[in-house]
């Protein structure tokens, strides 16, 4: 077999907010079936990369290829129809729709006959959503809204899932369960994942490959096994220096297991 084309191929994109560059020349590849992560400090351009892929922003330069088609500049709803689901930064739920209606909206573009079974699948991943199915999403806690945003994206049965800091503001236990969900949708359903994270430890644990972004550019890329061993990654991009000695020690221990 010939080496397959990656499912998503971002080539040298430059995206601007007016005159401010959000991303200045980023290329990355997401092979089918893999989990790829993008790490980087605040303002590095991670969200901008995802927004460019999903069509919310139009790149001034460069191309975005998904499953063999150039999709840069298409409207977000058309890109969603191709099978790209997006969990945006900061729990963008529909506050006055119920939890269940939010989930149904996730399958807006899908055949309505499968929606019921899909919802039950989501409730298995996130039982707390089932408890609050009749509640307006605006009344869910922040973490519950984050679960809902992930569940809503899964309703699409996407080929590719873009996740923008899904662990933000979650308790350690929920971070763990989110990461389990991501792994399980990747392994059991073959969903390809592009994961943006501040929680580098979680991301490096579950991803196969990682890109490190700084100031709108890719400054490092490698398999996550090697990335987590790189001293630079620990020090500069994951902010390990700022973490307590105990944190550092734990990090070292983890390095030795690999």
């Amino acid at each position, binding site marked *: 077999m010939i080496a397959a084309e990656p499912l998503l191929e971002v080539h040298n994109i430059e995206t601007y907010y007016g005159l401010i560059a959000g991303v200045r020349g980023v290329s990355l590849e997401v092979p089918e079936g893999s989990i790829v992560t993008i790490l980087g400090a605040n303002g590095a351009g991670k969200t901008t990369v995802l927004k460019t892929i*999903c*069509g*919310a922003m139009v790149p001034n330069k460069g191309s975005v290829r998904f499953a063999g088609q150039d999709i840069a500049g298409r*409207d*977000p*709803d*058309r890109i*969603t*129809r191709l099978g790209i*689901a*997006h969990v*945006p930064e900061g729990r*963008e*739920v*529909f*506050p*006055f*729709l119920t939890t269940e*209606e*939010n989930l*149904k*909206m*996730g399958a*807006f*573009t899908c055949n*309505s006959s499968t929606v019921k079974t899909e919802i039950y699948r989501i409730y298995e991943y996130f039982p707390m959503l089932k408890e609050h199915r009749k509640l307006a999403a*605006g009344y869910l806690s922040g973490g519950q809204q984050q679960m809902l945003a992930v569940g*809503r*994206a899964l309703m*699409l049965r996407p080929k590719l899932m873009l996740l923008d800091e899904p662990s933000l503001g979650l308790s350690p236990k929920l971070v763990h369960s989110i990461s389990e969900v991501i792994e399980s949708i990747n392994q059991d359903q073959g969903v390809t994942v592009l994961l943006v994270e501040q929680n580098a430890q979680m991301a490096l644990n579950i991803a196969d490959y990682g890109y490190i972004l700084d100031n709108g550019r890719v400054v490092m890329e490698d398999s996550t096994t090697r990335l987590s061993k790189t001293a630079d990654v620990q020090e500069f991009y994951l902010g390990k220096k700022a973490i307590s000695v105990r944190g550092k020690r734990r990090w070292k221990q983890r390095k030795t297991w690999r």
Partner: protein
Amino acid sequence: MDTFFQLLLSGIAQGCVYGLVAIGFVLIYKATEMVNFAQGDIMMLGAFITITLINHLDWNYFLAVVTAIGAMGLFGLALERVLLRRMIGESPFAVLMVTIGLGFVLRSVAGMIWGHDSQSILTPYTDLPPLRFGEVVFPVADVVVVGATVVLCGLTFLFFRYTRFGVAMQATSQNQLAASYVGISVKRVVGVSWALAAAFAAIAGILLLPLKSAYPHVGLVLGIKAFAAAIVGGFGSLPGAMIGGLAIGLVEIFTKYWIDDIVQFSVSETSVYILLLLMLIVRPSGIFTSMQRKKV
């Protein structure tokens, strides 16, 4: 007491017309955060199209009504497409000027086509005897307005509550970005909102015709009152717009009957605006505020 009930019904009927036009304001506002000040003039256009079909082309009443509503729906769609879509991202003031300008254009075009005289139509219910309940006499035209509005509100409720596209329209007004991420075409939602708003205005115009005749400026004052109704209702809620319309219709008719006679001048014309001011002072966000500000 008999007059009370008769006034009540005709206030409600008039209020229904305000409410239907107000629903158009709210539909467009929820989808685009624009206020369409030509809403009343779109109502006038719907009324004149119906007049033309019935009086000049001799169409059957029901066929004419359905055609006029459909045509106005398409007109709303086209307005959004060719005029308002260009205004996305412009300042609210610029959008305001465009819709006010649109109102002027519609009124003067209507004047050129249909002249400035009042016109009306004969409906299948024009010659029906009024309904009598003891001493109380209810004109059929009023009853038809109320009945049609109730049916329409019911259908609207079902549409927004149970159809996929209806829920998607709600979702879009709550969080436009998230809506586009789940695959909802925001452009289509906006287009449908304009089409529905224009169709509601047309229905209001058609129902109004037997009560008051139509002339090119009929939508101007009525549009302002409907705008007041939308504000009383919180400007973000469809049921609120309807209730705001009823409130304005009732206040107007009762002040007209009870106060105008006593003080010997027309308080009723200003009563609507007094109500509006009171609402803004007492509950700045309206009665049925649609909760918090939406995310963009």
